[in-house]
């Protein structure tokens, strides 16, 4: 029975008949949208959901009504078909690749246990309830419940890189009863039933129960192998398919991300709406004109031109005329605009992908524009939110300093320690400089030994020993790897682990600890612990974690040591090092038993399991004895200070959001030149309560104003009520920086304080938020988006940056050490922070410039083209007579004028790339939105209308009395049409030539080619041959020849061109002279 609201899922092993009742999805996945039959209707349906396309369809229908049709149907259908087919081809190609990858995945082979024997089946034929066999290095075919494995204890190892981007191995274990099943014969008889949660997208959670032989077994994520994982270090394993195909967690997670739009996009949509409004106004004006004309003139003229049958009065005629004018003026709403914009953006994206200077040869990764629709916004960024670890720093950790029992070991000698004579298992790449530490290990100092024992036991690193002594560690985070490697070199070598044991070699002596519990790390706890029983039977808890949380949980007798260690920790943090505090606690058998019971309860809890577990952990992590602290260095990436300097010169504000502690963050701030000693003041906000945060913010505000010196003042409200939206603080002298702690930030982000926080923070040159959670990162971004009309960019490399990357206007992922989750969520990715300056100042700036120039010209050319009809309306009885030949109207936008402007939109450069990096101020016009805004739009429109006036009235004035040299008057309609059209094409070509600042071969070919094409096509369309075949279609036979042979026509064209272009030229020259933009100056001096 199919139940639409699946509350739980029941799966019985080896019982297809039973499982079929539920109609679970099969394991066949389909990410493709269309097939051959559905492609056309579905794709067209999708495309007509675009307003612009529907509008043109509507026009097409209007044109089929003979009383209205002022233009042949093909003038609309040709561009529409072109636009639709370009999009369709793109969609089809995308879908083809999706089909291909679907097919490839669906046809992968897997071994399925059917009626007691293993059979090869394609993935798509695997059903829910089947038992399948996986071998080493195979992809998991569906979400499986691990039943048994070739390894002891039903263990198996998986790599989840494809799922969550983490490249370390993870361990999974089967329920003990099923792990005993072992071989296929037993498994074929297995008839357990699993009841579990319905399909969902939570990768780290699974909740279910196995019923078998009248017993219940709890199932957790620890028992699951998810689709997309790869089996590693395990010969083979068997699993029961729980979720298949679209129900798997992998597929459930592949939801579409939110579609980002640029501000230019939004502006463009607004402008298109305005143009619609404008079009309707024009239509109304002309319709009124038509009514008046029909009443005053047309009705009298009926002897020569009677009204059409349905028309019996001037009002109805005006009504029809309105629609006729909507048809012929439709070209002000440019159908090809959206397609052209997409093409240009695609081009820019390719330039980003192709850029060698954003290619990192060490990691062999080029930059990648993962979204092709945001490029021009890269030229408008005002706020950058950056992660620290892995983004500003390399995320390659080295164990640098440590403090053990109150003694600090730091770099003192320049002699690198050689560990090999002491320890054959040492990692040769490890560097440490203080030999007193090694001495202390050698003499057997208890604390030192405990210290390194802790490091060798308290972690989640997996080891791989390819041959004796050749150890490789796979760590979830580089910090952990560094710590375990340090322990290894100092004689406490972690060798291997099973779920129940950890084997180490301590000072050359192999020791196996029983692993009793792992108290996991998470962002809230900020610490992890292990509880182990050593071979002698003593139980000990080892804990490492952030000093803030750990120092609170120490035994009171540690007070003195804690003070010394705290000093050391502060020292380390001031050096920009990442610090951890280490502690242990000896547990008695009773304590362990008691806690273990409460832990089990919490573990089995059905509701709020996480919270109860955390509480249980909290309970045992008390009264610990401090061992010491470690300091790990994370080196700055190459070129970070320079990049930050350049970006801040470009008036981009950089906010660092990091999970590190305040001292570390501040220090990194100094080393990457975000904070400098020249700064007037660095404010630190670290209050724990609403009141204290408010007070601190208030005092920051006061001191900002104190130096402001008159003029507009930042409003510093008393602690309450909330301030009105603050005015910008232009007049704050001196440079300030703000450092705010995560706990204070939580208060500052509350509704009543956020405006104050934003205005204060934005007045500072640099802002560092430390100890922030991933959610807070996103909140900060959202806050700026809400309060500032500024483009934000978030850059990060880890999973904790994903939310911030997704909520910023532009997300940039650094493909580095921490997996690929950030990259997958990002819009642009590359591997070095320093490429950001090139992405913004070169690519972004160019994209913005090109897009703006493109849009200005595009609107201009369409207005110049279309408005001529409006003026002509006053001379043709408002009859919706077009000025041009219908073929010209069809081809103008798609052939005669499309390519030169596309070439400009793709290739134009005002200053070379090197210059935009040298003069970061060149970036400012983008931030201020100067190159294309409503004002610029109106200027373009005005220029277009001016051009249309010239284009109509100059030929009108000249030709009305002119004759050919044979005496034949030139004022006939066709001559007029050809003259106007030719003038138009020449004027807009000259205009694009003026607008193009960077004439590559391609520009030359397109500009001259378009002009050539215009004349060629015109002569072809006006040729006798075509007329003889279709006498009804080509009325203009002979017009081109007859018109263009007349000197008067060419004099008219020259005159109109001069009248259109000369003022523009003069205006631009004077502008460059009187009010030169920086780009003009730079450009001038570049030559």
């Amino acid at each position, binding site marked *: 029975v199919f139940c639409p609201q699946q509350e739980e899922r029941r799966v019985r092993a080896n019982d297809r008949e039973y499982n079929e009742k539920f109609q679970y999805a099969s394991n066949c996945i389909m990410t493709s949208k269309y097939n051959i039959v559905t492609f056309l209707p579905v794709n067209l349906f999708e495309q007509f959901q675009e307003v612009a396309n529907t509008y043109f369809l509507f026009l097409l229908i209007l044109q089929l009504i*003979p009383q209205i049709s*002022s233009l042949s149907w093909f003038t609309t259908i040709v561009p529409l078909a072109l636009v639709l087919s370009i999009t369709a081809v793109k969609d089809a190609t995308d879908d083809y690749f999706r089909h291909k990858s679907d097919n490839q995945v669906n046809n992968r082979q897997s071994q399925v246990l059917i009626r007691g024997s293993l059979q090869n089946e394609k993935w798509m034929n695997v059903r829910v309830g089947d038992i399948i066999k996986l071998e080493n290095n195979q992809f998991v075919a569906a979400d499986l419940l691990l039943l048994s494995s070739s390894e002891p204890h039903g263990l198996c190892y998986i790599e989840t890189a494809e799922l969550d981007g983490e490249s370390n191995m993870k361990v999974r274990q089967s329920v003990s009863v099923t792990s005993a099943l072992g071989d296929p014969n037993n498994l074929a008889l297995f008839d357990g039933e699993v009841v579990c949660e319905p399909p969902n997208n939570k990768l780290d959670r699974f909740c279910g129960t196995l019923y078998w032989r009248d017993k219940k077994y709890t199932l957790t994520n620890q028992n699951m192998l998810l689709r997309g994982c790869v089996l590693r270090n395990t010969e083979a394993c068997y699993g029961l398919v729980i979720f298949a195909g679209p129900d798997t967690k992998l597929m459930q997670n592949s939801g579409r991300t939110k579609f980002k739009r640029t501000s230019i996009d939004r502006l463009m949509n607004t402008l298109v709406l305005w143009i619609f409004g404008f079009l309707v106004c024009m239509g109304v004006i002309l319709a009124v004109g038509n009514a008046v004309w029909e009443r005053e*003139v047309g009705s*009298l*003229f009926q002897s*020569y*031109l*009677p009204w*059409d*049958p349905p028309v019996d009065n001037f009002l109805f005629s005006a009504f029809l005329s309105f629609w006729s004018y909507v048809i012929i003026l439709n070209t002000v709403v440019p159908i090809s605009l959206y397609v052209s914009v997409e093409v240009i953006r695609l081009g820019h994206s*390719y*330039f980003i992908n*192709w*850029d*060698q200077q954003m*290619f990192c040869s060490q990691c*062999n990764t080029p930059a990648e524009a993962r979204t092709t629709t945001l490029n021009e916004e890269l030229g408008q960024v005002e706020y950058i939110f950056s992660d620290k670890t892995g983004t500003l720093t390399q995320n390659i950790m080295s164990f640098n300093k440590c403090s053990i029992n109150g003694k600090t070991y730091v770099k003192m000698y320049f002699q690198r320690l050689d560990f090999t004579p002491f320890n054959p298992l040492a990692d040769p790449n490890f560097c440490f400089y203080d030999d007193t530490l090694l001495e202390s290990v050698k003499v057997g100092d208890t604390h030192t030994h405990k210290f390194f024992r802790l490091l060798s036991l308290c972690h989640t690193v997996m080891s791989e020993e390819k041959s004796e002594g050749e150890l490789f560690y796979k760590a979830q985070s580089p910090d952990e790897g560094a710590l375990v490697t340090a322990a290894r070199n100092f004689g406490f070598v972690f060798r291997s682990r099973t779920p129940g044991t950890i084997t180490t070699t301590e000072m050359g002596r192999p020791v196996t600890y029983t692993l009793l519990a792992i108290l996991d790390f998470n962002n809230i706890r900020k610490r992890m612990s292990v509880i182990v029983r050593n071979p002698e039977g003593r139980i000990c808890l080892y804990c490492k974690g952030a000093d803030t949380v750990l120092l609170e949980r120490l035994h009171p007798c540690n007070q003195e040591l804690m003070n010394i260690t705290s000093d050391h920790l502060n020292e380390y943090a001031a050096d920009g090092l990442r610090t951890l505090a280490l502690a242990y606690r000896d547990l008695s058998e009773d304590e362990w038993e008691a806690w273990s019971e409460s832990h089990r309860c919490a573990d089995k809890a059905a509701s709020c399991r996480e919270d109860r577990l955390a509480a249980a952990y909290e309970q045992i992590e008390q009264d610990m004895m401090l061992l010491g602290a470690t300091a790990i260095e994370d080196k700055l990436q190459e070129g970070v200070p320079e990049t930050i300097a350049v970006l801040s010169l470009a008036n981009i504000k950089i906010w660092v959001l990091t999970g590190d502690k305040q001292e570390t963050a501040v220090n990194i701030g100094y080393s990457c030149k975000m904070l400098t000693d020249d700064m007037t003041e660095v404010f630190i906000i670290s209050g724990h309560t609403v009141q204290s945060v408010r007070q601190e913010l208030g005092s920051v505000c006061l001191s900002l104003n104190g130096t402001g010196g008159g003029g507009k003042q930042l409003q510093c409200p008393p602690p309450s009520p909330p301030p009105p939206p603050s005015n910008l603080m232009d007049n704050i002298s001196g440079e300030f920086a703000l450092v705010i702690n995560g706990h204070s930030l939580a208060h500052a982000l509350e509704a009543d304080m956020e405006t104050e926080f934003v205005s204060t923070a934005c007045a500072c040159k640099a802002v560092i938020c430390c100890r922030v959670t991933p959610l807070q990162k996103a909140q900060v971004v959202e806050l700026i988006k809400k309060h500032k009309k500024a483009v934000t960019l978030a850059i990060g490399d880890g999973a904790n940056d994903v939310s911030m990357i997704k909520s910023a206007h532009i997300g940039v992922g650094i493909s580095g050490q921490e997996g690929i989750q950030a990259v997958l969520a990002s819009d642009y990715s590359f591997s070095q922070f320093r490429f950001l300056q090139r992405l913004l100042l070169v690519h972004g700036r160019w994209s913005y410039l090109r897009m703006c120039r493109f849009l200005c010209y595009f609107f201009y050319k369409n207005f110049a083209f279309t408005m001529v009809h409006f003026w002509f309306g006053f001379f*043709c009885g408002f*009859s919706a*007579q077009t000025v041009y030949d219908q073929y010209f109207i069809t081809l103008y936008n798609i052939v005669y004028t499309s390519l030169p402007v596309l070439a400009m939109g793709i*290739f134009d450069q005002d200053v070379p*790339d090197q210059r935009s990096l040298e*003069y970061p101020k060149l970036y400012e016009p983008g931030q201020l939105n100067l190159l294309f805004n409503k004002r610029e739009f109106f200027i373009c429109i005005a220029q277009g209308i001016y051009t249309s006036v010239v284009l109509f009235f100059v030929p*009108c*004035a000249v030709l*009305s*009395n*002119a004759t050919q*040299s044979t*005496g*034949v*008057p*030139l*004022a*006939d*309609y066709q001559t*007029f049409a050809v003259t106007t059209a030719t003038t138009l094409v020449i004027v807009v070509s000259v205009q694009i030539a003026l607008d193009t*600042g960077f004439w*590559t071969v*391609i520009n030359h070919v397109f500009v001259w080619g378009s002009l050539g094409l215009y004349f060629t096509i015109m002569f072809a369309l006006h040729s006798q041959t075509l*007329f003889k075949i279709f*006498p*009804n279609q080509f009325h203009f*036979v*002979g017009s081109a020849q*007859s018109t263009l042979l*007349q000197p*008067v026509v060419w*004099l008219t064209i020259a*005159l109109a061109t*001069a*009248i259109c272009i*000369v003022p523009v030229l*003069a205006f631009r*020259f*004077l502008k460059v002279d009187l009010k030169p933009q*920086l780009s003009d100056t730079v*450009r*001038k*001096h570049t030559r």
Partner: protein
Amino acid sequence: MVKEEQELANRPDNTAFTQQRLPAWQPMLSAGIVIPGFVLIGLAFIGIGVALFVTSRSIQVLEFDYTGVDQNSPCFKCSDPKVLNCVCNLNFSIDSLFKGTVFFYYGLSNYYQNFRKYGVSKDDVQLSGDLTNFKTPSDTCSPYAYDSNNQPIVPCGSIANSMFNDAFKLYQIINGTNTLVPFDGKGIAWWTDYNIKYRNPSITPLKNAFNNTVKPIFWSKPAYELDTSDPANNGFINQNFLVWMRRAALPNFRKLYGRINEGDYAQGLPAGNYSLEIAYNYPVLSFDGRKKVVFSNVSWMGGKNEFLGIAYLVIGSMCVFMSIVMLIVYAKFKFPEEDGVPGH
């Protein structure tokens, strides 16, 4: 080795195109180009303007409105539509030689040949001599496709129906006797219209092609009788018909009626008294239209066209003026800080 190969696989191509380093010309609006450019353009325009103006001045034009609105005008008697077959004479004198070749035009005002519905009201297939469209004229001709007896009209449509049908004869009055000044009506239409676009059906006599069709309602005689004397000027390729069918772009227009290039008048119209005999058939007063006749000669640039010359002069002088303004601005603002980029 393997690593290097891999690197090559991912490294973007180092071409001028992909790295956006294509060689390019980067024009700038520098003073050295713009100011002399403006001067040159200005001077060129002034030169052309002077030439045009002088040429235009030398062209003689003689224009008469003969609608007959004014009671004193000779054609007043004909302006009443009830008067049929009215002929009126327009007398005028020429003081000095009107240099030839002299072209004779008729002109109409407030007449909307450019109205959309009017413009499409013809059948190009029919006019290219296709007999099937003689039987069934195109819908675009409506309401002049069929007459009240449902007979197809050939040529159909509003344009043909409304063909201008005033006829003119010019006499020079020498010693009281009228000497006919002949109008040459050949070659007044476009070559392509006469030779390609409009074709008579290839049936002789032409009349037979028009069997079972009727003439346009306003026409006094059918198409095959437009010029019975000359088969090459009859039917659809009658030059006056072609001239009418080439519709005007603007509501005030003139069309060529004939040229005076024969005999004594090949060099032009000598000074003297003339009389223009007008067969006044075409009613225009109902829609407040005006009719006129124009005598004009032409130059290399066609007929009289003062606007063009003046426009060139104005634009030319403005260019020169602008160049001076720009020079002043340039000198004032640019010379002191010629060198040095801000920030460097």
